[in-house]
């Protein structure tokens, strides 16, 4: 091909003037999206600014846009607070141990229920499925936990959550979407069911594992309600969020208190909140690339 001919050929399709021109609608959409993003980001920013500003500056103006009268004493108090570190330790146990435990049971159940033609599959499936729609209720659940002897133990925050039905369904759908021929060929080569699961299906499921792992991890990180109900008498087993709730719980001044009220300032509250959310905020972006993919692949096959 001649050189002048090559030069005449456009390397990429030319855009029409209509395409390159920024239209009014683009600006409106842009403004809406930026506003929406700011609305989401502002509470975080505001909390951060309050946490590093002096109490006097905050009291003068509750709506701080920029750090005023920089004061890191709130963070100093947070980082030297034994209760928060204790809660952090418990939450890490829940995060790692609880998440692995939940992943294990959810994944093996999902896998088993994705396999064809085993006797009782539908019965098991329906028994699990029914828990999505009908619960026993809070009071029976409370009595069950109490009578199983799990009150005031860390197990109450781990064991009952073995299988999450929704996530198990995602897993099951994903496994079911993988070609059955892979299993058949592996079995022809002599692999048993466990080998097929561990060496073939599990490696192909990493996006899904990351997705539901993230669900579990976020759930475990934020958990406090079970601790409030079932661990009322052992503060040393309270997870981080429960410790935080206890710390920032404001005492109504018409409750007589023999000791001075906790002088928990707004700065300290915000610093504590940051202490509890930053680790998860750091963790989240690394798994986010799996996140959407995992949801989609799990949901396409019914």
């Amino acid at each position, binding site marked *: 091909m001649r050189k002048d001919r090559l030069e005449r050929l456009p390397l990429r399709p030319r855009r029409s003037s209509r395409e390159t021109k920024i239209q009014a609608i683009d600006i409106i959409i842009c403004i809406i999206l930026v506003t929406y993003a700011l609305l989401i980001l502002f509470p975080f920013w505001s909390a951060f600014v309050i946490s590093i500003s002096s109490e006097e500056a905050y009291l003068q103006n509750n709506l701080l846009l920029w750090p005023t009268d920089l004061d890191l004493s709130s963070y100093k108090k947070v980082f030297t607070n034994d209760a928060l570190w204790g809660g952090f330790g418990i939450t890490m146990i829940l995060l790692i141990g609880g998440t692995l435990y939940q992943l294990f049971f959810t994944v093996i159940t999902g896998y088993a229920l994705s396999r064809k033609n085993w006797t009782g599959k539908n019965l098991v499936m329906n028994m699990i499925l029914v828990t999505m729609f009908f619960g026993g209720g809070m009071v029976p659940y409370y*009595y069950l936990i109490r009578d199983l002897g799990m009150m005031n133990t860390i197990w109450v925050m781990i064991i009952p959550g073995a299988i999450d039905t929704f996530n198990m369904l995602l897993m099951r759908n994903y496994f079911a979407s993988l070609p059955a021929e892979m299993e058949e060929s592996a079995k022809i080569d002599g692999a048993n069911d466990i080998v097929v699961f561990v060496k073939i299906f599990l490696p192909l499921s990493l996006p899904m594992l990351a997705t539901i792992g993230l669900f579990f991890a976020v759930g475990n990180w934020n958990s406090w309600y079970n601790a409030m109900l079932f661990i009322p008498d052992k503060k040393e087993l309270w997870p981080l969020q429960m410790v935080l*709730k206890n710390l920032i719980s404001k005492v109504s001044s018409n409750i007589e*208190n023999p*000791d001075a009220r906790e002088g928990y300032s707004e700065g300290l509250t915000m610093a504590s909140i940051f202490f509890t959310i930053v680790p998860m905020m750091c963790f989240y972006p690394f798994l986010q690339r799996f996140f959407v993919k995992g949801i989609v692949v799990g949901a396409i096959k019914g």
Partner: protein
Amino acid sequence: MKNAKIIYGACITALLSIGALAGCKSKSGADKYDKNGRLILELKNVYFNNWEGADTYTETLNEMFQVAIRPTNYVYGNWDEMVNVAINGDNLTDVIHFNLKAYNFGSTYEKWVDGQIIKALPDDLSKWPHLQEMLSHVSNIDRLKYDGKLYCIPVMSDIVNYEKDFSNFTYVYRRDWAKQIDEMPVNVNNPNYIPIYKEGDVYTWEEFNRLLAAFKTHIKDITGTNQSIPLVDQPWAFPSVTNFYKEVPHCFVKDSNGKAINAFTSDEYMAGLEVAKNLASETIYSPDQGSFTEENDKAYQAYKGGFAGVLYDNFSLANYIQLREYMRKEPKLDDATALMKVKGPDGKFALEGTENWFSATMFNYDISEKKMNKILDIMDYLLSEEGTRLAIYGKEGYDYNIVNGEVELTEKGWEKGADGKYAPKDNGAKYLRYMATLGNDTKSFDPYTDMDAYNILNAWTEEMKQAKKDGLLRVVKEPADIDWMSTPTKNDKTEGLLADANVSASKYAMSYKGFDKNAYLDSFKNASWERVLKEINEKLGK
């Protein structure tokens, strides 16, 4: 297929059986011992918030009474819920602590007695003389007895000054600002100007209103801020100015015939509410006062932030010390946190009446006699002179010595921080004493007490006591026969009615759109109010 169904059935039956067997457990409250053979005591109290139970003073008590004390606490914000969850879940500790009030005792305490949830104290308390002495001074104690038996230990506010029957719900104000306003050239040069600051902080109703008006005009000039709130109330107390008009603090008042009527629609309360409405419309109250909550703490923030002139709150010693701690950067702390004594239009001070106790310690019905006796032993000991010294000073020979009959603190036991104050240390004895008393009897010699705050508050209390003797203090209190009356609807509804009434009062005072006087009065025309009043009047024979 048939075999498979049998197998499923068998499996499900087996699972259900295991579940049912798991439900069989020993009854709670059975005596348990630690590895040293000491009786384990599980004690729960809202004031144990900062106590882990592993200090040397707790160990002293453990050794002395051969027990293993296991303290836990209720979270302040969920106190009532946590007690109710434990009771309904049959998961009680040996000792519980509840925010018992006249208005909730029928729906809680009375039911717990009937339901065998809580255990009666022994009839003969002579084995515990200090406890017995304390209980003999508890106000309205007979209301808490069933068949002559007492099922709780009311936590007394002050076991020495137990006659005090009024609360510390009052005003603190910026005395420094009042003085500054009087000294402003514009006022000094005005021959008609009447100074607003009153020596001794005693204000007549007219003077109080004049001070609020002056604060409205001048706070911004004094502080240089763009915010100004002459008067701010803690949300639970709004509108505080009604205290100078109303006859009772809560729901029910008697009319001239002795018949119970709704206190929130009485002429006296409505007069007070109109005053509050006027103050709000003149922006003496902040336009946001109606949206203040305990959680957002805006009332305190306004005062701490230096743009509120007068604050209404419960100034117990602990709360007053805390306020002074918040205001510590003020050059004249006493002037910035001065207690104000306001006389109402009738020329009298008005303070809300109260029992001389707050909350109650109760015992799990299932605990053994041995365990209960041990707990009572400990409580009695902590009310004795020796026990009080352990709770306040620590251990003799280590924390303090007795020299010439006086307590002398030791340096090794009482280290001081950089601020010159005694470094905090955990003392379980002090926390355990809160099961019987809030400890106001020890504040005057507690090394941790801010004595400046104590002296100011004590002087205020003495002044109010004297005013009461002189007939110049009106104690705003519900008639005891109604307050402690138990009827089915009253027990269940009073708390809700009170909360709704406060919301209505707040809306009316703040002139919420569409909430005029008729709407306010209509908010009380409902079946609950009618039924409760009917039941009360039937019992009163009216």
